[in-house]
């Protein structure tokens, strides 16, 4: 499968200027691409456009030549930097997982999610525990591409290592294309096959 960003241009507000112009990017199913660039320059915004959270002002995001589906499960899933902002605080964690649409039990286990976390609310979990749920949620059976935006930046190294070792195995097995945003050079050396400058 192919995820293409074709000539993307986007601005939040016209008067503030474009966040990015004419961005082109291609990710294949076996690809692990790092998106490089300084902070505050729009990498997260690009991720949001690629995952269908935002519509570009110009250009298109295409999945195998077709636009992203407007209904149902989006095959391009994004995992955010701050898990506490990516979950509904009024839902119990088991309900948060339901958004994942067909997340295998094996994934929940391999991510180290403990059964008794399921009945807790997001505020009762640590950042590392929450992020595990967010990752599981993004790995529903329909996922074909994963966008990981600084997903382990706020986590300690052991949690980072657990999460990435799992993810690398998972995306390889399921041929899920991966776009990674990270500031950590040592991490990118482990995780990315190629790099793209933003």
């Amino acid at each position: 499968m192919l995820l293409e960003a074709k000539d993307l241009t986007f601005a939040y507000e016209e008067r503030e200027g474009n966040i990015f112009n004419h961005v082109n990017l291609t990710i294949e199913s076996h690809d692990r691409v790092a998106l490089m660039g300084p902070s505050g320059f729009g990498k997260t915004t690009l991720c949001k456009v690629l995952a269908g959270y935002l519509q570009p002002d110009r250009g298109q995001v295409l999945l195998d030549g077709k636009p992203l589906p407007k209904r149902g499960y989006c095959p391009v899933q994004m995992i955010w930097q701050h898990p506490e902002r990516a979950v509904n605080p009024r839902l119990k964690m088991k309900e948060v997982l339901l958004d994942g649409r067909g997340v295998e039990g094996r994934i929940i286990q391999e991510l180290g999610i403990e059964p008794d976390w399921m009945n807790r609310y997001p505020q009762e979990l640590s950042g590392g525990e929450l992020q595990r749920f967010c990752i599981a949620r993004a790995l529903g059976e329909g996922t074909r591409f994963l966008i990981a935006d600084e997903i382990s930046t706020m986590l300690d190294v052991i949690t980072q290592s657990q999460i990435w070792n799992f993810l690398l195995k998972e995306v390889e097995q399921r041929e899920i294309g991966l776009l990674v945003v990270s500031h950590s050079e040592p991490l990118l050396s482990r995780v990315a096959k190629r790099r793209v400058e933003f």
Partner: protein
Amino acid sequence: MSCTNKRHILEIDELSVSFLQYEGKKSTRQVELPVISKLSVSVHEGEIVAVVGSSGSGKSLLAHAILDLLPYNAKTSGSMYFDGELLTRERIHSLRGNKIAFVPQSTTYLDPLQPVGAQVRQSRKDPASRQRQRELFGRYKLGQGVDEKYPFECSGGMTRRVLLSCALMGDPELIIADEPTPGMDLALAKQSMEDFRAFADEGKGVLLITHDIELALEVADRIAVFYAGTTVEEAPVADFASQESLRHPYTKALWRALPQNGFTPLPGVQPYVKDMPEGCPFGPRCSRYSKNCQGEIPMQRVGCGTVRCTLYQGEDLAVHHHHGTS
């Protein structure tokens, strides 16, 4: 607590923090919820000391404890010393904001009703203050237009740089920085760390509280490793060059998990302090766990560092040997 005879700027001795909470929604019975248990760390002149622990481990409360910013239902024990003298509540109140500066994690510490330039100057309008503030803003790439912006008009990264400027504006002897650089790219993060380095090199001290061990390794002189509410090891940064020179099994596991060192994760998660096993909190995940690990384990000096582990037969820590008596 280190191989140096340098003056202590800050010394924290067996600090414990717990919160009094009601047991359940309908209960009137109060329970004590421990969050920090016997944390010991010191900062000498000329040093950057990093307390490294995972997010949610309670380490931010250390900053709040030192600055007397804990909520009303917090209970503390242990002692803290600044410049060799006990930090009483009154003393903290007179020192914080000037001799002891704080760079907080949350950007909500800024006053939403005042433009940031004025906040950094603490409303002073004299030319020297303005110049200093402009200098600091310039250093952190905050343009002229930023002076008049309100906090809500600034991005997350910008507000952090404003907070940094606030702390460096005065003439502190100790800076306590709580996760000062998330959201900053490495170049900018290192630059703000360079200022902490320059600050420390003037004979002052920095206590850096962070989850980011890679940042600490780049910037700190010593690292105190924080696990489940307590310090398990304190070591000079040079000891992190190899697994063998580290002491505590948890520190070794941290080392192995680094992407540049094998990227090997230790299974399991850190327990909440309230769910802690008897004795060493790391016990359940430790391959060297034994019956001896179930009791109270004191911090001991081993070489140029300290460790809280039954595998070592070090020296007991001398308490406050510099405080006049011995």
